[in-house]
């Protein structure tokens, strides 16, 4: 059933090298434009005026528009960086986009309290609120909207990176090509982020990178191999189907693989509205450069599995079901991993000790997939080790050890193969994106290099405080922000329920951290609206008030085509969240500002106003999205 790679390429009439041709050179022609002959017949020429070259300059170039890239671009832009954001597709989200449709996995899998907060949470809360119809393109749209409306970001779709110019230990510029506009972008930047997943930018910059599965001896990992190899996890191709009111026959194409009952011993067909992660291939091939073959092989598996469901007779209930969508871009799990100042290992994941330079966390199991995938159905497709809790990820895994101005987020960070089996999932990738976007902005704003942050304890703490303030998913960091005037206020409330004391809004912890304690103000809404007040002995200059609400981080929140995955999620605003509220600022009991907010569904909300001297701020909770308590994790006040 399997295609042999060599014969596949032969059938295409090309060798593997032909796929790698630089697009600029690829435009040159060996054939004359005029076939009438003459001297031109034997001389090649380059039609150099067809493609327009755009010379661009920016603070931060982000390559790759998956979840990591989106969050890296947004984080940097929101912290003041000018960002050029290139994506080789016309959709954002990568594996989570409507083109691939993998649901976003992360630390929610721990079934504790650890759903990732930050930019990812903002995206997913927005999507859940505006997309009750579960339309995949709406998730693309949410990200597109957030990126496009940020004036600091220039988004270039359909733009593929193909060249990197490096001088010494720094990248000077990159070149990228847009097939839709016939433009070549020559982009100079201070910092470059490799969020390509494949580590393409790093590879083109000749940065150190890792590939394959490490030996035990390299990082002392119990799950390491006796001898290293170059094998990876495979790619997957998904599909969706819908139920109709009449039988929907299906005839498989001749190239579909054939399956029988025994092929599904280790792969369960539990429902058919959404495909299966185990439709996976390519681990034994070159996961990047054999991609064309792997895609076609996966297509043969998708149609083969659907043929089995429809026509084997073992799933007669599928009679009225028909394919409604199938992917054409495989979702990748593993390719290059760029080497940083630290390589995260299995031992770090299991021991779960805090890194001093922690900037994000993960919580997905150590979930390694066998490379043969659907080429050998007699084997279980994966081996999973559940984690006892979240593990921290250090900044040192997110910048290159060999190129000074190269940062990375996504599956291509500095981890071993075993550690990758947990860090690779998209919620983790998104938080890594936020970490590097913020790190670049912090470094530039502080006139230092990203790789100098770790060595400077004061700056490292400042950077972590910035991440925390911006709701990054980060472990064991308390709010110690000296600029936060709320920490100086005395706090009272109309009522306090269930142990949710008013002064917990400034206890420095902005979420449930599974320590058996509450970290939020709670007030019962049954007796009407509730208020909480911050008072200062002397007037404070304020221009910004920030709130962190409860959005049920103990639950999963992610769009999926699979009904089972959507179960126990809340589509729409999360019930714990305060929907309608007012913020009043007073000086000597005189109302200076009144901010009214309706239909909030976000966890982190900021309200700014003209700088004023204020000695009292009153927050009035008027309505929740269903919860009987008004719940606020944190209030911060800034000049």
């Amino acid at each position, binding site marked *: 059933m399997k295609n042999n790679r060599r014969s596949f390429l032969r059938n295409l009439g090309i060798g593997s090298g032909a796929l790698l041709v630089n697009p600029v050179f690829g435009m040159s022609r060996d054939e004359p434009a005029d076939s009438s002959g003459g001297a031109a017949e034997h001389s090649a020429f380059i039609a150099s005026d067809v493609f327009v070259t755009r010379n661009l300059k920016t603070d931060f170039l982000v390559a790759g528009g998956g979840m990591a890239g989106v969050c890296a671009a947004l984080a940097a832009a929101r912290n003041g960086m000018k960002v050029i954001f290139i994506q080789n597709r016309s959709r954002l989200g990568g594996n989570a986009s409507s083109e691939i449709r993998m649901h976003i996995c992360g630390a929610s899998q721990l079934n504790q309290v650890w759903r990732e907060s930050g930019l990812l949470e903002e995206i997913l809360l927005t999507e859940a609120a505006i997309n009750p119809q579960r339309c995949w393109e709406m998730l693309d749209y949410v990200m597109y909207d957030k990126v496009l409306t940020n004036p600091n970001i220039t988004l270039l779709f359909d733009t593929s990176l193909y060249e990197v110019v490096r001088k010494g230990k720094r990248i000077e510029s990159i070149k990228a090509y847009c097939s839709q506009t016939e433009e070549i972008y020559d982009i100079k930047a201070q910092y470059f982020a490799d969020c390509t997943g494949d580590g393409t930018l790093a590879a083109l910059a000749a940065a150190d990178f890792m590939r394959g599965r490490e030996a035990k001896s390299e990082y002392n990992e*119990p799950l390491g191999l006796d001898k290293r190899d170059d094998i990876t996890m495979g790619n997957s191709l998904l599909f969706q189907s819908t139920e109709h009111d009449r039988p929907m026959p299906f005839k498989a194409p001749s190239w579909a693989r054939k399956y029988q009952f025994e092929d599904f011993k280790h792969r369960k067909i539990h429902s058919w509205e959404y495909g299966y992660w185990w439709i996976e291939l390519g681990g034994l091939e070159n996961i990047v450069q054999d991609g064309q073959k792997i895609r076609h092989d996966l297509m043969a598996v998708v149609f083969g599995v659907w043929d089995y469901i429809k026509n084997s007779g073992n799933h007669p209930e599928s009679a009225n079901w028909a394919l409604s969508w199938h992917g054409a871009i495989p979702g990748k799990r593993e390719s290059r991993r760029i080497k940083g100042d630290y390589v995260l290992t299995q031992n770090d994941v299991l021991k779960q000790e805090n890194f001093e330079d922690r900037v994000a966390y993960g919580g997905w199991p150590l979930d390694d997939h066998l490379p043969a995938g659907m080429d050998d159905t007699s084997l279980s497709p994966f081996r999973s*080790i559940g984690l006892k809790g979240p593990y921290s990820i250090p900044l040192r895994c997110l910048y290159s050890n060999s190129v000074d101005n190269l940062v990375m987020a996504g599956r291509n960070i500095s981890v071993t193969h075993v550690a990758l089996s947990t860090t690779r999932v998209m919620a983790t990738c998104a938080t890594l994106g936020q970490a590097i976007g913020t790190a670049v902005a912090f470094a530039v704003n502080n006139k230092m290099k990203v790789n100098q942050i770790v060595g400077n304890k004061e700056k490292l703490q400042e950077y972590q405080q910035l991440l925390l303030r911006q709701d990054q998913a980060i472990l064991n960091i308390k709010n110690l922000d000296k600029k936060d005037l709320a920490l100086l206020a005395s706090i009272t409330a109309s009522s306090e329920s269930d142990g949710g004391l008013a002064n917990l809004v400034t206890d420095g912890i902005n979420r449930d951290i599974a320590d058996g304690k509450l970290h939020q103000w709670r007030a019962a809404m049954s007796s009407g609206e509730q208020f909480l007040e911050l008072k200062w002995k002397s007037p404070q200059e304020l221009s910004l008030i920030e709130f962190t609400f409860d959005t049920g981080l103990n639950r999963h929140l992610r769009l999926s085509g699979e009904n089972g995955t959507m179960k126990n999620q809340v589509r729409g605003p999360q019930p714990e969240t305060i929907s309608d509220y007012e913020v009043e600022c007073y000086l000597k009991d005189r109302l200076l500002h009144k901010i009214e907010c309706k239909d909030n569904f976000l966890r982190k909300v900021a309200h700014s106003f003209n700088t004023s001297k204020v000695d009292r701020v009153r927050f009035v909770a008027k309505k929740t999205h269903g919860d009987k308590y008004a719940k606020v994790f944190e209030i911060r006040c800034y000049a």
Partner: protein
Amino acid sequence: MMNHWMILFLFLLSFQSKGQQKPIVPEVSIEYRVNDTLEIQVNLIQDQKTSAYFYHTFLATDICNDKVCLPIQVELFWNLMGEYDHFSVPQGQVFTKFDHQYFDQTDYDLLQEILLDTLSPIRDYAVEEFLDKKEQKYSVQLDAITRPTLKVFSNVTVPGALYTVYALWHIVNGNIKQLIRNQLDVVYKQHQFADFFATSNNASYQEYYLEKLTGDQVVAAEPILVRLLFSHDDYIPHYAWRKLGAAYYADPERYNNLLKDLEKLKPHLQLVVLRSLSRPNLRTKEILMDKAQSKTLLQNQKELIYKLLNYEK
């Protein structure tokens, strides 16, 4: 990771197996080096009551953490595939927990459940990782403070017996599995285990039997193969059907009896059977006519039956 508890064995008393087990001739014995301080002898035995074969060892040792040692005497049993099967505690002996409380039946049942779980977190975490570094509990026995098990791991150990459970899990699920598997081909032939495997209810045994069955043995093994079509496992019937082969599928004298029990086969195998058969004779058609009357028959089964009823050479 294993090193942390390996050194915890202070001493080891080893006894030969005794009781209701019959030694096997010729003797099959495996030296199982658990760690640097513990080596045990594992012997192939036959249970006199059930006639089932097991690998067995009697283990008598102390399992210690950094503060206290708990004595343990236990008989351990693995099946012939190297999978842990069960344990038994010799009469008069009892397992102890934190502060020398005794195991009760619920604790033993839980221990058995944990030892059978080859995917337990015990496989992957060092024993220290199960302890709550923030919490403490007081031991009367020691008059000292010790650390309790993390709540998140409370279901993967017997309360108060983490070190015992951890050590036993690694003994029964350690390299012994591979050592027993290494012997399997030889032992299977030497002791003529084919019938024992084929007639067992263990799907792993049945699968191994089918793997080892050569083409020239198929005809003689036909009654066994037909019986395996009714195995409780989902997949063994398919493997057995494949073994029966084309000659069987085309010979109504051989398959008609099976057809009579068609509905007793798993539905997914019924379809495979009906699709494979050819050359039905009159008796086949009588049986199928009878089956076609069944109201529980699925549409696709009916279609296949009609196809056979209309079969012409």
